[in-house]
C-alpha cells in the first residue's frame, strides 16, 4: 500500500511541477509579448483603417436563441461597429420566445431572397429578412438545430464576405474591436487565416445604447473569480499559445476566420459540443495536411464583453460542457498526437491539452486523495505535506496576480481602486473551495460524456438589458 502511495505521490509531484513550470513559462512569454504589443500600439493609426481600401469585407454571424431580452441592444451594438465594409447576419435558431418579433419591430425587417447555398449542414430555413433601416443587416430564421454550430453554419451559407466574424448575440463588442482584430490579417493576408480576440466579463458593467459605458467588477464572488479566470486564460494562456502559432481555441464569442477555409472544412460540426475548439483544430489539421504556411494569432486588445454565469448551478453546467467539448474534440484528433506532420500542434499543443486540461481533474482529485491518505497513514510527513500545500497555494496565487498585473500594465479597464483591491483579494481566495468545485464539475463533464449525455442545456442569463438597468 505504502509503495503504491509512493508511486502515486511521485507521479503527482512531477505532474504538478511540470504544470506549474508551464504556467510560469506562459506568464513570462505573455509579459514580454504584451509589453511589445503595447509599444507597437503607439504607432498604430486605427482611424486610418476605418477608411482604408485595404480593409477586406467582413460578415458578422451572430446566432440567437431565445434572446428577446437582449437582441435589440446586441444588434444595435453590431450595427454601430467601426468598420468600412460590414455585413451582419443574425441567425434566429428556432427561438421559442419573441426574438424575431423584437428584431422585426426594431429594424423593420422585410422578407427577402438572398443568396443561400447550403455548403455547410444545418437545420431547414424558415425565412430570410433584411432590414429596411440598414440593408447590411440580414436575419435568418431557421428551425432549431440544437446547437450553436448549426446556427453558425446557416450564417456561413449566406455570408458573402471573404472573412467571417463569429460573435455571441449576448456579447458586446467594443466599437473598434473589428478594426483591431483585423490588423494581423491586413498585415499578412496570405498567412493569417484566423484571429482570436479577448473575451472579458460583462457582469457588473454598465451598458448604454448597446455600448459599454462603465467597466466595473461584478458584485458576486463567483463572478469576480470568473473575471480572474478569464484574465488568466486570455492574457496569459492564449497570448503565449498564439505567440508560438499553437492557438487551438478561438472563443466562439469573438473570432475572425477566412470564409473559404471554414467552408473547405465543411463549416462547424453540428454535433460538436465545443464547436469553437473543434473548428480551429480542424483548420489546423486541414492546413497542416496541405502543407500550407499559415498563422493563427491572438490579439489581446480587441475586446468582447460577455455575460458569465452568476450562479453555481449554471456555472457548473457550463464548465461540465466545456470539459465534454474538450474530450469531444481531443478524442477524434488523437491521430495527430506526436506526429511530425502536425508540427507544434501535434507535438506540443494537443499533448498539453490532454495532460494538463483533460486529465487535470482526474489527476488533481486523485492527487489530493492520495497525498491526504499518505499523510494520514504516516507515509508522508504531515509537516512536509502542509509545506507542499502552502507552496502550491502561493504559486497559484503568483499566476493569478500575474494576470491581474498584465491587465494593469496593458489595458487597465478596472479603474476604481476598490475594484483592483477586490480583484487581488480574490486571487488569494479562489483556491478554496472554488478550485475543488471546479474540478468536480469538470469530472462530472467527463463522466457525462462517457455515459453519452451530450445534450445542451441552456444557461440562466440576465441579458444585456439588465446590465443597462444596473
Amino acid at each position: 500500500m505504502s509503495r503504491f502511495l509512493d508511486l502515486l505521490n511521485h507521479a503527482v509531484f512531477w505532474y504538478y511541477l511540470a504544470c506549474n513550470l508551464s504556467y510560469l513559462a506562459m506568464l513570462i512569454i505573455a509579459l514580454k509579448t504584451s509589453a511589445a504589443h503595447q509599444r507597437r500600439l503607439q504607432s498604430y493609426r486605427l482611424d486610418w483603417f476605418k477608411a482604408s481600401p485595404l480593409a477586406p469585407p467582413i460578415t458578422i454571424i451572430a446566432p440567437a436563441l431565445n434572446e428577446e431580452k437582449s437582441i435589440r441592444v446586441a444588434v444595435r451594438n453590431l450595427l454601430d461597429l467601426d468598420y468600412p465594409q460590414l455585413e451582419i447576419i443574425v441567425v434566429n435558431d428556432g427561438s421559442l420566445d419573441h426574438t424575431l418579433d423584437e428584431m422585426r419591430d426594431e429594424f423593420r425587417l422585410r422578407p427577402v431572397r438572398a443568396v443561400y447555398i447550403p455548403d455547410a449542414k444545418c437545420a431547414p430555413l424558415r425565412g430570410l429578412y433584411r432590414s429596411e433601416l440598414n440593408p447590411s443587416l440580414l436575419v435568418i430564421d431557421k428551425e432549431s438545430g440544437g446547437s450553436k454550430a448549426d446556427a453558425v453554419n446557416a450564417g456561413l451559407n449566406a455570408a458573402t464576405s471573404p472573412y467571417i466574424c463569429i460573435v455571441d448575440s449576448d456579447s458586446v463588442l467594443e466599437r473598434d474591436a473589428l478594426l483591431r482584430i483585423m490588423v494581423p490579417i491586413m498585415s499578412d493576408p496570405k498567412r493569417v487565416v484566423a484571429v482570436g480576440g479577448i473575451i472579458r466579463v460583462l457582469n457588473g458593467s454598465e451598458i448604454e445604447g448597446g455600448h459599454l459605458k462603465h467597466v466595473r467588477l461584478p458584485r458576486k464572488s463567483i463572478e469576480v473569480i470568473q473575471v480572474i479566470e478569464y484574465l488568466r486564460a486570455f492574457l496569459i494562456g492564449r497570448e503565449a499559445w498564439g505567440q508560438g502559432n499553437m492557438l487551438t481555441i478561438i472563443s466562439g464569442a469573438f473570432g475572425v476566420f477566412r470564409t473559404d477555409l471554414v467552408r473547405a472544412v465543411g463549416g462547424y460540426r453540428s454535433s460538436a459540443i465545443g464547436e469553437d475548439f473543434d473548428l480551429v483544430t480542424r483548420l489546423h489539421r486541414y492546413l497542416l495536411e496541405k502543407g500550407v504556411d499559415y498563422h493563427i494569432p491572438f490579439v489581446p486588445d480587441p475586446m468582447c464583453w460577455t455575460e458569465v454565469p452568476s450562479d453555481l448551478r449554471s456555472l457548473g453546467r457550463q464548465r461540465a460542457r466545456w470539459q465534454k467539448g474538450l474530450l469531444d474534440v481531443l478524442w477524434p484528433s488523437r491521430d495527430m498526437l506526436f506526429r511530425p506532420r502536425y508540427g507544434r500542434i501535434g507535438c506540443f499543443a494537443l499533448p498539453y491539452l490532454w495532460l494538463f486540461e483533460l486529465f487535470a481533474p482526474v489527476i488533481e482529485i486523485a492527487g489530493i486523495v492520495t497525498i491526504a491518505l499518505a499523510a494520514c497513514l504516516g507515509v508522508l510527513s504531515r509537516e512536509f505535506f502542509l509545506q507542499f500545500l502552502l507552496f502550491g497555494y502561493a504559486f497559484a496565487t503568483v499566476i493569478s496576480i500575474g494576470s491581474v498585473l498584465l491587465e494593469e500594465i496593458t489595458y487597465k479597464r478596472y479603474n476604481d481602486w476598490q475594484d483592483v483591491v477586490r480583484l487581488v483579494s480574490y486571487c488569494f481566495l479562489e483556491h478554496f473551495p472554488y478550485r475543488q468545485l471546479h474540478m468536480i464539475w469538470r469530472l462530472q463533464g467527463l463522466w457525462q460524456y462517457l455515459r453519452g449525455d451530450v445534450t445542451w442545456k441552456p444557461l440562466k442569463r440576465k441579458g444585456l438589458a439588465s446590465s443597462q438597468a444596473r
Partner: protein
Amino acid sequence: MESIFEQLRRLGPAAFLLKAIVAAILADALFLAFILLRRWYRKRYFAKRDARVFELRQNWDKLISGEIPYDTWRSKPFDRRIVETIALDALDAATAEESARLLKFLRKSGLIEKRIYEARKLTGWRRMRALVALGQTRALEGIYALAQGLRDRDLEIRLAALRGLGRTACPEAAQEILAWVGERGLCVPALPLQSALIQCCAERPQLLIPYVQHAKGQLREVLGRVLGEVATPSLSLDLLQFVGDDLDELRAAAARAMSHAERGLAFDVLNELVGDAVWFVRLRAIVSLGELCEPRAIPDLLRGLTDSHRLVRLRAAEAVVKLAVPMVPVFQKVVGTQDRYGLQAYLTAVENAGLREKLEAELQADAGGSSDENERLLKILQSGVLLEEAALAAVSGAEKSTPRS
C-alpha cells in the same frame, strides 16, 4: 522505495520547499507592490498633469503666438511634453490655416528640431517616440530623419518611421520609402508599408512603376497592390504591361487600376481579365467593369454571373444591377444563362438595391416583349427558381408521392 516527499525532505525543507514558498510569497508581494505603487504614482502624475494642462490651456493662444516667451516652458521637460502633445493633437484635427499656424509654432519653438535631433541621435524607445512625434508634425524637414529611422535594426522603430513617413503623405516621403525597399527588400510587415505608400504615392503614382518592374517576390505583390489603389487614368498605358504578368497579384492590381483608366482602353483590358484563371483577378476585373458603368460590359458581367466562385457571381450581379439600363432585357439574359446560382445572385442584388418592385412593374408594363415571355419572367422573379428547375422538382415530387407497386 523512498517517498518523493521524503527525498525532498532529506534535502532539507530549507533547501527546497521553504525556498520555493519564500520565492512564491516574495513574487506575490512584489507583484502586489508593483500594482499598488504604479497606481499611486499614476494617480499623482495624472493629477499634476491635469492641473498643468488646464493652466497651459488657459494661455494657449499667447503661448503659441510667442507672447509668453518659449523659454518659460521649453526648459521644463514636463511642460514641454504637455505643450507638444496639445499641439500635435490639435494638428491632427486642424484646418489648413490652423495647421500652418501650429506648424509655424512648432518650428519657431524649436520642437521639431529637437525631435529631429532625438530621432537621429537617440536609440530604442526614445528614438521610437521621437519618430512617432515627428511623423505627427508632417513637417517636410523631418523626412530625412524619418528615412534614417527606416534603417534601424529594431523592427518597431522601422515601423514607427514608416508610419511617420506615411503621415507626411508627400512624394518626397514616397521616394525615401521606395529607395529603402529597393535597397533592403521587404523587411517590415506588408500592411504598414502598403498604407504608407498609398498615402505618399497618391499625388505621383508613377513613382511606383520602375520599382514594380524591378522588384521581386512578395515586395512586387505589395507594390502591385499599392499601384492598384493609387492608379490614375494618366497611368493607363504604363499599366498595360502588367495585364499579362505572371504574378496573380499584379494582374489583379492591373485589373483594379483599370477602373481609373480611360474607358475604351479599360474596357478591352478588363474584357480579357474577366476570363483569367485566378478567381481574385476575375473578381477585380468584374468590380472594375462595374465601376465603369458601361452597358457594353453586360455580356462580360453575365459571364461573371455564371462564374464558379461565389464572390465573383455576387459582385457581377451587383454590377449588373447598378447599370442604368432597362431591367427587363437584362433579366431576360440572366434567365437565359440557365444558371440557378447566377439567377439567385442577381435576384439578391436586385432585392438589396430595392429594385424588385421596379422590375416587377417593368415586366408588367413592358409592351415590347411578348406577354407569355413576360409572364414566364414574372413567375421566375416571384418564385426565384428557373421554371425548368421547378418543373423538374414537381416531376420528382410526383414520382416520390406515387406509391411504388
